[in-house]
């Protein structure tokens, strides 16, 4: 007889993913100055944004998602990168709000599309990790 225990696999996978992403919170021991730690954090976010951009462009090219949806996400990646460059020490709220606004414009079925879902989740997670607690972490 099959157990009626709830399927915990999704939560375990999410916990492990968060644990690995959280490890990105700690800069390498060679990065010691406050400015170096700021750049390290911004670079970790930029990695996920670049991955999102690459994934979205590929998904649009293979007709996995509509061009209008891809345009919203690619615009977000470009604008966020510009914010990261200009204010690497204070990008958090601006980028998180922009991400929330971008996601509002996209039907849930596309955000959950397997072709981009993981890249979307990675941005969600890295922003949640780096967003200051004082903002409430609201995405």
């Amino acid at each position: 007889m099959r157990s009626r225990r709830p399927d915990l696999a999704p939560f375990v996978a999410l916990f492990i993913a968060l644990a690995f992403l959280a490890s990105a919170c700690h800069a390498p021991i060679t990065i010691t100055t406050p400015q170096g730690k700021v750049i390290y954090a911004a670079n970790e976010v930029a990695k996920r944004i670049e991955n999102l951009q690459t994934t979205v462009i590929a998904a649009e090219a293979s007709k996995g998602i509509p061009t209008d949806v891809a345009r919203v996400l690619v615009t977000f990646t470009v604008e966020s990168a510009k914010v990261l460059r200009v204010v690497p020490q204070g990008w958090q709220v601006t980028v998180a709000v922009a991400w929330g606004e971008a996601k509002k414009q996209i039907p849930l079925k596309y955000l959950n599309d397997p072709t981009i879902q993981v890249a979307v989740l990675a941005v969600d997670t890295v922003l949640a990790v780096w967003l200051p607690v004082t903002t409430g972490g609201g995405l």
Partner: protein
Amino acid sequence: MNPLILALIKGILIPELVAYIQKRQAEGKPITEAELAAEFDARITRIVATGETWLAEHPA
């Protein structure tokens, strides 16, 4: 296995695990702050250039 779990494993866990291992291995060859800043600048330039090119080719 649930497709979402598979996607998480392939898309996040494996790349993060590889990055973590590489980071640990690199402890003998530490990245300097100057190298990190250069990597960051190059990545941002790449994101902006790629994105703006794509947007120009896919106007609203």
